[in-house]
Every structure is written in C-alpha cells, then in structure tokens.
C-alpha cells in the first residue's frame, strides 16, 4: 500500500517539479527555436511514457501484492502484445527522430550569406578574428604562434592583411545576420558554448570546425567553454554582444581604427 502510494508520488512529484520549478531554459536569442520545439516534443513523449510506466507499476504493486491465497498467472509470453508494444515504441521513436534529423540537417547546412567569424580558444581565454573588408580570413598555423602573433596568423596570406583580431573576450555581432563561426584552438580542446543561442561546438587543435546561427535578440550573452580544458576551464569566459546594425558598424569602425593605429610604425 505505502509502496504503491510512494511510487505514484514519485511520478506526480516529477511532473510537478517539471511544471512549477523555477529552473528552465533561458529565453532563446537565435534562430534555433526548432531545437526548443524538438525538446518540447521529446518532453511530451517521454513524460507520458514515464508516468504511464510508474503508475502501471504502482497499480500492480497495489493490486497484486502478496496476500493469503494470492496466486500469479502462468503466461510465459504473449506474442500479440509484445508485437504491438514494439510497433508503438518504434512509432514514438520515429516521431522524435524525424524532426531531430530534419533540424540537424538545417543545423549543419550553412546559408550562403553567412559571415565568417573566427573564434580561437586557448587556455583559458577567447579571441576572435573578423575577415575585414575583403570578407576572407587569412590562413593560420599553430607553428607561427609567437609573442607578436598570438593567434598564429599566416602573414604571407594576402587575405590576412585586413583581418581584425579582437582580444579580450568580447565579440560583437549584428542582429539578424547569419554567422558562420569557424572554430579553432591553439592548444587543447575547448568548446564554444552560447547557452542562450543554443549553440555549441568543440574547437579541436589541428582542425577547424564550424557552427552557424543567426542572433535574433540584442543583448549581452555568455560564452562558456564546455569541454574540460585544464584547471582554468571554469574561468574561460567571454561575451557576445548582439547589436543593431548601426551600433555594430560603429564598433567595427573602432576595431578597424585600433588595428591600423597598432600597425602604424610609431616606435
């Protein structure tokens, strides 16, 4: 009796926690609303299954608990029932997988008009590189890294001449414009994680990975490292500031001016 009751309370408590707890995802700030929708579909299907299983168990425990004279039935199998359950499960799984794969296809297909932005991870800070007026990023090589070239940019590549390097962990992006983030690490594996933009991808030394998104809301958003990268992992923070186009242009001008001021041979 008590056991059956507690099992039911576990199911009710779980649902109540889901509905009333203050802990939920952050309001989305990118185009990946579909991901949230797929999560909601998955919550519905799995939630119904969970409650059904637990309540069924509780009923069995209550109804078929041992009492004097209680006798179990002898039924080794029931092909029909087993077949039906298999089919229903397969349908439920397909209902979750289909939208998942559909959205994944979008997730990995970068739109043509996306702007390249390079994100560079190193223990334990973020740097960024914008392609400049030519729209192209110069190549890079970890072996070129030195005090005067912290990101290992290939200076012989003409595309790199107008690239704008941003250190200090704050990247600005214009709202409504798709961004292709090219992810690179110079030491260990990091991960470019923007919880509010539902964006996450590892940055692996020796290769360039990518992830794309379109910011849909202005504001300041955390960049977290989501792949254990050593003892300073939890301190590896940065920010993305999403701005209206005009504000963004002003920031970009400032960055460009700073670059040329640095290049001017004053020393």
């Amino acid at each position, binding site marked *: 009796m008590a056991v059956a009751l507690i099992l039911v309370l576990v199911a009710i408590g779980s649902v109540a926690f889901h509905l009333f707890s203050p802990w939920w995802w952050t309001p989305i700030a990118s185009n990946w609303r579909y991901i949230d929708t797929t999560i909601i579909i998955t919550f519905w299907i799995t939630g119904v299954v969970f409650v059904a299983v637990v309540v069924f168990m509780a009923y069995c425990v209550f109804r078929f608990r041992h009492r004097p004279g209680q006798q179990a039935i002898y039924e080794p199998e029931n092909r029909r029932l087993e077949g039906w359950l298999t089919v229903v499960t397969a349908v439920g799984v397909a209902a979750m997988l289909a939208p998942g794969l559909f959205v994944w296809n979008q997730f990995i297909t970068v739109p043509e008009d996306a702007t390249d932005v390079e994100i560079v991870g190193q223990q334990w800070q973020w740097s960024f590189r914008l392609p400049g007026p030519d729209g192209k990023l110069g190549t890079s090589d970890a072996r070129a*890294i030195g005090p005067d070239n912290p990101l290992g940019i290939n200076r012989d590549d003409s595309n790199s001449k107008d690239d704008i390097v941003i250190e200090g962990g704050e990247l600005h992006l214009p709202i409504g414009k798709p961004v292709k983030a090219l992810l690179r690490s110079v030491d260990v594996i990091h991960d470019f994680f923007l919880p509010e933009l539902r964006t996450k991808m590892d940055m692996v030394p020796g290769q360039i990975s990518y992830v794309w998104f379109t910011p849909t809301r202005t504001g300041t958003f955390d960049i977290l490292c989501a792949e254990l990268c050593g003892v300073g992992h939890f301190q590896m923070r940065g920010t993305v500031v999403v701005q209206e186009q005009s504000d963004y242009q002003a920031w970009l001008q400032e960055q460009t001016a700073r670059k040329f001021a640095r290049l001017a041979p004053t020393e």
Partner: protein
Amino acid sequence: MVDVPLGPGTIIPAEIEDVELYHPKSWVTKYVFSQDAKVIAVQYAIVALSVGVVALVLSWLMRLQLGFPGVFSFIDANAYYQFITMHGMMMVVYVLTALFLGGFGNYLIPLMIGARDMVFPYVNMLSFWIYFLAVLVLVASFFAPGGPTGAGWTLYPPQAILSGTPGGQDWGIILMLVSLMIFIIGFTMGGLNYVVTVLQARTRGMTLMRMPLTVWGIFTASFMALLAFPALFVGCVMMLFDRALGTSFFVPSIVEMGQPLDRSGGSPLLFQHLFWFFGHPEVYIVALPAFGIVSDLISTHARRNIFGYRMMVWALLAIGALSFVVWAHHMYVSGMNPSFGFFFATTTLIIAIPTAIKVYNWILTLWRGDIHLTVPMLFALAFIITFVNGGLTGLFLGNVVVDVPLSDTMFVVAHFHMVMGVAPILVIFGAIYHWYPKVTGRMLNDTLGKLHFWVTFLGAYAIFFPMHYLGLMGVPRRYYEIGEMSFVPPSAHTLNAFITIVALVVGATQMVFVFNLIWSLRHGRVAGGNPWRATTLEWQTPETPPPHGNWGKEQPVVYRWAYDYNVPGAEQDFIPQNQPATNTLPLMGLAHA
C-alpha cells in the same frame, strides 16, 4: 557417465567431463590465492566495494564544492578536477565493471549453469590479482608527486598530457593509463573464462534457452567487454607513448602555455573514437548484467515467470550488438564530420526499442503476479523507475540536434548518473540482499535493509532528477564553480546546496548497509538453502554456503527453464530447474520451445 532420462523437448548441451578440481591445502590457497570462483567473487566484491567507498567520499568532496563554493578552502580547482576524474573512472571501471562481472559473474555463472567452477580456475585467480594490482596502481596516484590526473574520466588528449591539467606532466596520467592497461589484461583473463564457461560447462539439460537471464546478461556483457576493452587498451598505449616518448598520435601542432611544442600530425579526435568505441559498449557492459539480474529478482519475488523470456534474450543480444555502432553519439559536437550525426542518431534511437521491450516485460511480469515486497523486490522496482527515467533522458541526448544545447551540461551528468550509476547500483544492492543468504548462509537484516532502500532510492532520485534542469538552463558540467553567469538565477545555487545535503545523507546511509553486511555475518537469521523459494540451480545446492565444487557427488540435471513459478497444478508455487517432470506435473512453457 550416467544416462539420464530427459523429458520431451530437452536437448543435451555442450558439456565437458567432470574434471578434478584443484584442492587447496592451506588457508592461503583456500582464501587468498584461491581458485574457487566463489571465493574469487567475494574477493572481487570486497575490493570493488572498497573502491566504491573511496569514490563515494570523492563525490562528497566535489559536492561540497558545488553546493558551498569557496567554503572549503582545501578543495582548490586542481583538487576538484582530480576528485571528479577519479570518482568517474573508479565508479565506471573499477567498481561497476569489476563488481558485475568479477563479483556476480564469478559467483553466479558456475552455480546457475550447474558447473563445478569456471573452466580455467587458475586464470581466474590471476584475473583477480591483476585487478587488485590495477587498483593499487590507481590508488598510488593519490600519493604520487602532483597527485592523480584531473583530465576528466574521458582523459581527452591533448589536455590530459599537458601541464595545464593536474597530473598531466606529473605522474597522475601515467599511473592512470598504466592502471587501465593492467585492468584490461586482468579483465581479459576473467572475461574469457566467463564466456567459455557459459558456452562449454553447462550441466546436462541446461540449454542456452533455459539459462536464467542473469547468466545471459553477464555472458553478453563479458563478450562485449572482450571486444570493447581492446580499443581502450590501444588508446592507452598510444597516449602513454605521446606522454612518455614524445610521439604524436593524438597531438597536432599546438602550443603549451604559449610555447610551441615539437609535435605535429596527431589527431585528438582519434582518441575520442577509440575511447567511445570502448566507452559506449561499456555502458551496456554495466547495464546488461543489471538487466539480467533484475529480471530474476522480479520474477522470483513476484512469484511469476518472467514475461517474454525469449524476447528478453533477443533484446539483450540486440542491445549488445547495436551498442557497437552508436559510439559517436558522445561526439555530436566534437568537431567530427557533422554528417555522422544522421547515422549515429538513428542507431542510437533504434537501440531504444529493444531497451523499451525489456522495460515492458519487467512491468508485465508484475501484472497478475503475487508480489512479495521484499528488500530485493523494492530495489528492483526502484531500478525500473530510475532506469526508465535515465533511459528517457537518453532520447534527448541521442537525438543529435537536441544534444547541441544539452551536451556537456549538468543534464548529461544527471542522465548518466541516473541510468548507469543509480540504476545499476540499485540492482547491485538488490542482488546483494538476494544472494547474501547463499554466500553466507544468513539473511541480511530486513529493517536495516528497508531503511537503506528508502533513503538510497528517494535520495538518489532527489539528487539527480532536479539536476537535469540545471543543465537544461545551460549550466556546464565540470565547472569548479558556476561563478557569474548572467542566465543563472540565484535559486540555482540553492538547488546545488540542496543536492549536496541530500548527497551527504544518502552517502552516510550506505554505512547502514556496510554495518548490515558485517553484523548479519554472525547475527543474521539462518537462511536455509532456498529462503526465497527460487527455481534456479544456485538455490538447489546440497549445502549452503556451497563448498568448493558446488554440487557434492553429482552435478544437477536440468529439466526446465528457470521461471516455473505458480505453474497450474503444481503443489508448490515454484518448481526448481532440476526437478524432473512427472505425469501430474507437465513441463510447461519454454521447456517445449
């Protein structure tokens, strides 16, 4: 050999001659360097549970930091990362794998299939002592210069072997890799033994489709482990070379703390593929023995045949096979070719189908049963709930695009603890309450058992269920402290403190269990040979605890499957597997199959 009259539908199985066993002559050869699988099982269990206590204390320390950041000054970031790494590796490999296969496998396989011992008793002994050596090397890293590795249990290079990670340029990572390699050598000896024993040493009448699901689970898991562990072994060898000899298997051109390293051409992703080719089957290496054991617990204590036995066997085998083609679902956001996501998401979600079938059959076994709410049954029920919960959250993480916001967050931590931490451990507890009477001849105390059960089950659920929502919010895992995150409300810190307090309570309650284990050795109620009135062979031994050789003069002969409970017309509510058919007692169910 005596010609035994076999009932209809019986098949003579593969069998070996009844060989002379090694007879121990001294206390040392009987209890220390023992060749008796049952003694080896207890040795495995004691060492694994001891490692488990260390891992539990480590989890307390990490929870203290997460619940009350900054309060405990001795837990700095270095120590924190060492604690999580050692906790994870200890639990997955040195506790769960060792306990299920080395502990339960050794004790139950020979007894349940009617054998006198494992087929290679000497190798079996070596297997334990090599495992023990692996544990010593692992524990030694706590005392080595620089302490143990803090690379996370996944040991991803290059950080695992660089100076920015605790133990990366000290002894920690070397001892970890060496310990794993020793473990794998020891396990291979044990694993071959389990597989060959099941295939070759079953007693007369014990066909494969009459084996209890416990044996099926352990057998399938051992077979998988023999295929999966070599991938980890290779990964360990290569990383050890990278660390000690300066090779570049996993290290491309990189800088270390601003200084370029003289390496090039290695692939960090290669290690991840090797690691998860082992790592995913490993989840099922832990889960399948739990599946098997819990099936037998439910059937015995619900006094009902397991529902859909044949489907259960096929589901086990299907899960075992599929688990080798899903590994890269741990790597959706690893930077591998993203098109892999389509394949691995599909295989991963397909594996949900045989897994769901198992759950249906467990709960359908309860339907119209005669449910005795014994302590093992309570643990079995709690297993179903936590396993279903953890399995369902796996459908979030397996569904590639949903994994993007959730991977590497506390959602993942909550998921895998629920599904491969809490759920299998609940089965281990249930199994210990169930088989302790056979091992020792005495029952564990029931009241203490129920106290242990309720605190452990409800406590573990209260720890891990809310944790999912921290991850859904975006709190990453492996963070020494959350610090300032604009999207995390202060209430999240309250939740973390709550989880820590519950974890301390649940951990402390395990001492009740340890006390019960020791106290009942002398003071427990005398059990008799078959206290649960179970059908399987281990309960039919002439003596309890069974002596070396298990069966006295004659090995048992099997006439029926393992689940003849409440057979219509039978005089008792169970018929042991070695009871012949008579005219009034027809062979039922799968005996005909």
